[in-house]
């Protein structure tokens, strides 16, 4: 076995200009036959299964306490209710953020310089600050209820958190819209112009339909990120999965051996939710690329 075989370097990529057998002097190249690691949903199940099964071994000392698996099963319905809140917050934040983001993105493409600058500034601000800081801002600046035409509308924490998360979604969607519109060749605008289409007609009838497909993968990517970020709402006390997990842990006496199974369950839920979105995004990305 030659030196280059052992190091995974391929002899055939060795340039003529380096007459050496020393592996360190060879250009780096990955040996073939090592596909990049790829997770499948079954791996997630396996990981969490291992966690749930092995941790009872730690719990031998507390003979009277129920096993961690029993605890997880007992509390699963409550925890899943919390997870439903995460899903609801993320979906609503996505809906609001997408709606506002399309408007903001189009404003960035407007003909008026002032509107364009304002929209650009808003986008930059909300894209370049931590989501948690935005969440704090909304939580503490928005009142717990608003009065509209004498009608008191209460704003529960999770609604405020939804607004908080929709701000970064808005900014990111705006950037996606702007980038997608910019990616359409200028000649399409020229062709539409020479046919006497107005700017608005060109945008809605010719440009946007062409880039809708291109916007889908990055948009889904934003969704996966926001779905995972919703656990940050636990920091400001919103009742969602992570908050409930902490409460369940406390209710079970804060036993250290329950820590991994309970939080492992939360991990599992998010993984099983977000991983398929991630795969679908990748599939769509590939499909739209080739067309």
């Amino acid at each position: 076995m030659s030196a280059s075989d052992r190091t995974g370097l391929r002899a055939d990529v060795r340039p003529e200009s380096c007459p050496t057998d020393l592996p360190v002097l060879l250009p780096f190249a990955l040996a073939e036959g090592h596909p990049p690691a790829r997770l499948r949903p079954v791996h997630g199940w396996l990981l969490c299964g291992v966690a749930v099964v092995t941790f009872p071994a730690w719990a031998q000392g507390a003979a009277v306490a129920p096993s961690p698996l029993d605890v997880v099963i007992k509390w699963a319905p409550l925890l899943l209710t919390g997870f439903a809140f995460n899903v609801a917050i993320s979906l609503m934040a996505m809906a609001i953020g997408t709606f506002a983001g399309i408007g903001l993105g189009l404003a960035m493409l407007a003909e008026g310089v002032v509107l364009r600058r304002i929209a650009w500034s808003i986008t930059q601000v909300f894209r370049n600050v931590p989501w948690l800081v935005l969440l704090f801002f909304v939580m503490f600046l928005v009142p717990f209820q608003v009065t509209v035409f004498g009608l008191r509308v209460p704003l529960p924490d999770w609604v405020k958190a939804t607004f908080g998360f929709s701000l970064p979604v808005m900014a990111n969607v705006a950037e996606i819209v702007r980038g997608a519109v910019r990616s359409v060749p200028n000649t399409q605008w020229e062709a539409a112009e020479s046919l006497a289409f107005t700017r608005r007609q060109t945008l809605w009838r010719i440009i946007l339909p062409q880039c809708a497909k291109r916007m889908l993968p990055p948009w889904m990517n934003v969704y996966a990120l926001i779905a995972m970020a919703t656990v940050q709402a636990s920091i400001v006390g919103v009742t969602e999965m992570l908050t409930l997990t902490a409460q369940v842990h406390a209710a079970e006496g804060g036993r250290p051996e329950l820590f991994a199974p309970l939080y492992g369950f939360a991990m599992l839920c998010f993984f099983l939710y977000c991983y398929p979105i991630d795969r679908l995004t990748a599939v769509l990305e590939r499909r739209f690329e080739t067309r």
Partner: protein
Amino acid sequence: MMPAPPDSDPSAGWTPNQPIVRLVDVHKSFGTFEVLKGVSFDVRQGEVICIIGPSGSGKSTLIRCVNALVPVTAGSILVEGIEVTDPRLDKLALRRKVGMVFQQYNLFPHKTALQNVMMAPIHVLGQDRREVEARARALLAKVRLAGKEDAYPGELSGGQQQRVAIARSLAMRPDVMLFDEVTAALDPETVKEVLVTIRELAEEGMTCMLVTHEMNFARDVADHIYFTDRGVIVEHGPPATFFASAQDERTRRFLSQVL
């Protein structure tokens, strides 16, 4: 020329016995680079003119000024009496009279051939969809694309796409057609089918302004040829005299290279 009152038909003062397009001392600069240095000529209704010249001599810029895709720096362009250089120009009104076909076809890739042709009359002119569809099908048949109505641009050859682009432009019933090097991106074997289409248009009396590198075509189809170099018209004349007895040294050098 009568100045058009602002809120009536801007070409109200124009009559067909006047030039349909008139360029007077047109200048155009991109930054400090002057592309057009005072170009003047007239195009009469039904006339076919070809603009030839070396690359970078401002041919495309010149033709794009006519439908206000490119704003001019100085000078005057009148299209049916509409002053194109007027800052209050109604660009849409102008572009309803002037059709344009591009080198890269620029069809809308998400629409079928038929939809490409139908879009502008329906959405820009607000015409009846059924009437437009009948006209669009007739136009596609005219450019020999009957049967390709439902094909997407990506499924058509370059020559076929370019003929759809011509049909799309004709669907607006323009008075003047601009052709910007429409065969330059085509395979040699498909060039002919596009040129045949343009020739038919010319024979039907459509006013055409072409920027082209096809000298033989220019000789056959044009009523008048303009040779541009470095932003000015060096020489012009009817094809018979232009090709046979070019006077200017630059013209002769160019013709000896391309013929």
